[in-house]
């Protein structure tokens, strides 16, 4: 299982992600700079959190058009697993690899806190090591996590199991529509979520509930190859 981590100017959770993947898989992931046009052979591509390009224009907008993203798009189209966390989720929506958009938090403030997430769909390659409807704690740290999609898109993702993580209603930190915290694409190989599972993988983090997302992704159950 080879993992690649894409780095953009302004990525700042990349090293947390590298540490998490290294601890969980025993292998150090490959780092890929945004100006590359090809990815090394990868079974899992991760776009980490941060503030790529200073969040200029819109969060993730400029990174979504970086040279490496053409390679990510081709890999995603071929069924390779792609995970976007926080800014990575914003980049995937801006790139059109996931539906909807992430807007300014409803409370207008940057939020850095722990929320509770409900696993809405454990029948994915990213979540099969969770129980269906399991509630897990997870940290969030973002300014633009307010998920929005038009009603047609929302109906589709809700009815087809594409909403994978939802904030418990009492901990929705950003006004996200339907308390959506993470979604998966139709094919089931591209997941984006605002919370940071890489910051909850061992006892020193206060819990290891985030680890199961990576353990799921590193041991996929379903064949998503296109």
């Amino acid at each position, binding site marked *: 299982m080879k993992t690649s981590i894409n780095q953009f100017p302004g990525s700042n959770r990349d090293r947390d992600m590298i540490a998490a993947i290294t601890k969980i898989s025993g292998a150090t992931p490959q780092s890929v700079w945004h100006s590359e046009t090809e990815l090394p052979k990868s079974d899992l591509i991760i776009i980490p959190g941060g503030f790529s390009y200073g969040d200029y224009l819109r969060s993730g*907008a400029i990174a979504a*058009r970086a040279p490496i993203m053409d390679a990510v798009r081709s890999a995603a189209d071929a069924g390779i697993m792609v995970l976007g966390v926080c800014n990575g989720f914003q980049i995937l929506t801006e790139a059109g690899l996931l539906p909807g958009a992430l*807007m300014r*938090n*409803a409370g*207008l403030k940057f939020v850095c806190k722990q929320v509770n997430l409900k696993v809405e769909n454990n029948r994915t390659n990213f979540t099969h090591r969770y129980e269906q409807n399991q509630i897990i704690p997870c940290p969030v740290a973002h300014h633009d996590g*307010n998920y*929005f*999609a038009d009603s047609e898109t929302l109906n589709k993702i809700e009815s087809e199991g594409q909403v994978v993580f939802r904030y418990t209603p009492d901990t929705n930190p950003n006004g996200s529509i339907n308390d959506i915290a993470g979604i998966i694409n139709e094919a089931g190989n591209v997941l984006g979520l605002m919370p940071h599972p890489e910051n909850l993988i061992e006892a020193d983090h206060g819990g290891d509930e985030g680890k199961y997302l990576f353990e799921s992704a590193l041991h996929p159950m379903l064949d998503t190859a296109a």
Partner: protein
Amino acid sequence: MITARITVTLKNGVLDPQGKAIEGGLSALGFSGIGSVRQGKIFDVELDAKDDNTALGELNAMCAKLLANTVIEDYHVEIL
């Protein structure tokens, strides 16, 4: 050189928490009768193009590819 102004605004029905905060700020300053405030972005672009039509084609492509996120935003291009 052609100068154009691109205006990007949130689509109708998309919640605009920043506009709401500005609206509250104006009310707090004593301005009354405000129905609503929606905020957006303006880009002034100078470009070389052989005529306005060519420029408009380029500018609309810029909006669709980068300047606007058409999931949540509308755009308007005007040659100045």
